[in-house]
Every structure is written in C-alpha cells, then in structure tokens.
C-alpha cells in the first residue's frame, strides 16, 4: 500500500472504535427477560414495569459482549437500552405485559434484523427480498405490513431504523407519540 493508506490507520480506529455487538434480551414480540448482565435499572415512574437486575450470568458472557445498559421507564412502557463499547445501540420498548413491541437501532454496521425482529423477521425478510429485486444501491426501506412496520436507512458507517408491531402497541400509544412517524 501507499503511504496514503497508512494514514488510514488512525482513521480506521477513530472511526469505528470497537467491533459491533448487539446482544438483545428479547426480539420483537417476545417476552422481555431481564438482562443477565444488566447493571442499572431505574424505575422512577409509579406503576411502571419493574425490571430486575442480576449479575449471576455475567461471567458466562465474553467481556466484549458485556454491554452498558440502562432502563428508562415511561408511563406505559419501558425502554431497555443496550449500548456496546463501539457505541452501537439498540432500544427495546417493553409493554406493561412484558412483551417487546418495538425496537430501534443505531449501528455502525448493518444489523442482523433476525435477532431484533424475532417472529416478525420472516415478514420483513420476504419484503426486503422483494425490494432488493429492484436492484441498484438502496439506502431507504420501509415495510408497511398489516401489523409490522419497519423503517431502515443507512449510508457509510451508520445504519438506523426501527420496527414495531401495531397490535402489540400499548393501548393509547401511537407511533407518532414515539416520535417515529
């Protein structure tokens, strides 16, 4: 390589920090289980879903997978935020019944949505496969299925998106209220 590519060394490290890991506690539509390695849980809204924290299983996870997590609690749902050492992050929105009804991601690399969408993934995969048949570079995707909504976008080293299941939204909560639509 030329000297110009050697200059890239510093950038490569500065640019992306560490590798992406996105351990999720539950996929869309699945029951949320308190993270094995959760460090803090805040439940400062009366009546909000209570999370529990345990460090028992932490030793079983490689250190690189241990994420910094926090639990922000809203009135009708809880937000389980997972941030990795590289800054990639996933939010899971958990309804009062413990079911994950929405996810949002913000990652350095294209995320594997099968891990985030769970049982809803085949619907997404089918739609994405159809969309991909258009060909060419595609940086915007929206699926507006009967029950599942997925929006995904990205360029360079930044991928963002969200997904929710309409029928799982807590009563009275709209996507607009989430600031997503």
């Amino acid at each position, binding site marked *: 390589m030329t000297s110009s590519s050697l200059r890239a060394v510093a950038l490569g490290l500065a640019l992306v920090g560490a590798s*992406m890991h996105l351990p999720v506690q539950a996929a869309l539509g699945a029951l949320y289980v308190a993270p094995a390695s959760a460090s803090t849980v805040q439940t400062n809204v009366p009546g909000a879903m209570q999370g529990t924290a345990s460090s028992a299983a932490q030793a079983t996870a490689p250190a690189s997978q241990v994420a910094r997590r926090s639990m922000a609690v809203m009135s009708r749902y809880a937000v389980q935020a997972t941030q990795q050492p590289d*800054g990639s992050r996933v939010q899971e929105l958990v309804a009062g019944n413990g079911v994950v009804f929405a996810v949002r991601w913000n990652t350095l690399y294209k995320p594997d949505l099968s891990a985030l969408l769970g049982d809803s993934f085949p619907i997404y995969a089918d739609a994405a496969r159809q969309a*991909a048949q258009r060909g*060419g570079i595609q940086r915007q995707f929206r699926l507006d299925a009967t029950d599942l909504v997925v929006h995904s976008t990205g360029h*360079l080293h930044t991928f963002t998106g969200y997904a929710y299941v309409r029928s799982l939204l807590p009563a009275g909560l709209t996507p607009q209220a989430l600031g997503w639509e």
Partner: protein
Amino acid sequence: MCVVWRWLACVAVLLLSACGGGGDSTTTTVSGNGLSSLGLSPAVATSFVQTANNLRVVVQDGPHGFQLGANANVLYATVTLCVPGGNPANPAECQTIDHIQVDTGSVGLRVLASKVSGLPLPRVSPSGTDTAWECFPFVIGGLWGQNAVADVGLGQQTATRVPVQLIEDNASSSMQPPADCIKAADGNILASATALGSNGILGIGSTTLDCGANCVSGNYISCQIVNGVNTCTGFVQYYSCPQGAANSGACSATAVPVNMQVYNPIAALPTAYNNGVVLKMPAVTDPGAATASGELIFGLDTVQGQAGLSGNYVPPQATKVVLGTDWQNQPDSYLNVTTRYNGTTYLSSYLDTGTNGLFFTDTTLTRCTGSTWYCPRSTLNPSAVISDGDNPALNPVTVNFQIGNAEALFSTNNTAFQDNAGATPGAASSFAWGMPFFYGRQVYMSIWQQAGALTAPWYAWVPL
C-alpha cells in the same frame, strides 16, 4: 402487505419501455412540455475540459441489459483498472470500464469481476496464503466477491495499489456467497450489471475505509444465550478462503488489517488531490433532461484553476457544513448533517450521489398513487436549512429546492431529474439529499482526516 419503498411498478414499466434508444445523441424535435417525440428533453452539460485532476461524469441510461426501473439519476463515470504498475496502453495490464456508478454514500471501488477477468490482479491475502473475499451489504441488497489490489485510473490521475472488490458475477462459479452473506443482502446478492444498474460502484464517501475496526478485529458476530436460545447478531464482512477452494464453505471470517481493507480511491490519489472532491453538475429543469453531464474534480483547497488544472478552492462565500463525528454521544448525527425543513429537524441528513431522489417526510404533500413518491399538482419551491451534524446551531445554510410530480417526471424517458422526491417516515430520522441536490451546484465534499484545516468531514456548495 404493501412494500412501498420501491419504484412504482408502472413507473418501472414506463422507464423500461422508454430506455431502448439510449440517451446522449437522441435530441430531436422538442415539443409540448419540452419533450421530443421520443419523450426526451434536451441533454444538459457543463463545459468540460480534461485536466490533470478531473473526471467526466454523466447521468444517463444504465449499461446494456439493465432491465429494472432504477436507472434514473444514476451518476456514472469511466474508470481504468490496471495491475499495479501496469501500462494503460496494454490491454493485458489495464482495462477501461464504463458505467461505474459514482457513489458518495459508500467507500471503495467495486467492479464486476467479468470486466477485469483478463487482468492478473494480485489478490488480497491477510494470512499470506488464503485470499480475502468480501460481503458488502447495503440497507437492502448487497455484494459478494473477491478482493484484489489495483491501480485505479481516474481521468489523468492514478490511485496506486488500492484494495478493491471484484463483484462475483459468474453464475456458474463455485464460489457462490455464503448463507450469512445472502442473509446480509436480504436474499438478493447483486451479481450482474442488470441487478446493479452499473458495471460497478466507485465509492468516494466521507471516509477512507469501507469497514474499520470491526474488520481489523475480525469480530463480526456476537452471540449470547437468551431464554435458552442462542441469539446472534452481525454479519461477516471479510472472509478468508483457501486458494482453489471448492466453494465458499471453505471460507471463514477473517481479520483484515486496515492497509488491506477496501479503500477510498480518492484518498489514494497523490497528495494534492486526495482530501476530497468537487462535483459540478449542470442545472436541470422540469421535466428533466435526457442526460446530464458534469465534472468531478479531485482535491479540496489545493489547486488554483489554470490551464491544465481544475480549481478546487471553496469560494469564500460558501459555508463548510461539518458532518457529525461524535459517534459515542450523538449517534444520530454521526457522519450526517442536520436538515431543518417545514418545522422538523432531521438529525440524520446527508448528501448522496448514490440516492436517486430527495427523501424526507412531509405529510402535507400529496403522494403518487400506489407509491411513496410525492406528486404535487404543480412543482413546489420549498426551502430547508442544512447545518452542522453534532452542533446544529453552527453553519446554517438555506437551501432552495423543488418538489416535482414524480409520476409526470417518470412518464418521460429522461434520466436526470432535479425534483423527484419521496417520503421516508420518521420525524426524527433522515433527510436524504440525493442526486437532485447536485444539479446546478458545485458541491465540495471532504474526506475525514485527510489534509485540510478541519479534521471532521464537511460539505460546502455554491450555485454553478
């Protein structure tokens, strides 16, 4: 179920039926709304003189065989690939490839392997023996192919010994993509000029590397037990495959040092030209132009315009709008700028020649029937303010743009449109300034941490 993020089926048909004739030379009788009998408006072009540091670029029909309705507003250039040190006059050492898509939303040169099959390009070998293959996903779709090292000729300049990707387009090759890559590409590996809409992609975005630390470490996928189920996320980007492997099943995820990762060819040009580009595109008016020909200039703030050289200084009246770089604290604005439009702030906003329209949310606009393109009754002339990524209060610049009736635009046979716009949901999400932004402007786009006064990448622009 309705997948709305696709081109209108009817639009695709119209574009298809329209594209048989080729664009550049077909300007005949102009009638009615500015269209010839072939449904084409006149071609537009900036004056172009070949200099030491420029490259002709053109929006036109895709390469022969492209049968999908995606070839509007695709910017192409012709690029030469050589074995390192090769002589461009010797076809055994260099091949010239037309219809390479110029993409500021990705990094690295990727060409169909069949276009350089006669060139003995050295392979990339992180281990010293096995060869590197790469899976490169887009938001939808993706690429698979072997890596190689080439001298990349861009106009009169050469980026020497650049790692590139050779897109595997031999359907009978035994090296079909691994399952993980097919999944990363949403089941659709783009493996032909038809699927790609081009013979390759020239990624000249705001960074130097196509991967970074994830590939340096080789840790692409993490798994953990959740509810008794082993849940894994992430996709492998670089694979190491034994030479002569029977199939990709013999390949495994591999770490790739930065000097072997696919690299922004602009950043590998000689020093005066390697810190960014200027894109000059002619103005386009409704209902589009048959073709639009412009100029890509290498380097920023390094060359005064004179005989044989294209000037690349940012004019004093232009504002440098800085992309966000604070990934840890402000991920939404990372490698993005901010757009304020119609009372809404879009934190993830970017200029992108690889996006063929303007994409943002405005629920007050009429959408075309059956698609998310906008179809106002008459062309609108709104404005927006683009400002810094991490600190939106800094460097605000007002941008006037147009929103046309996409259905009417796409009913022509034109390939260049300055006002096709579509909806993308998410008030807090993205505002993508695709190709329409670039017409009638001279746009300056820097590469992160290359030479220059600012360390973060930035955009600047002035009217032509």
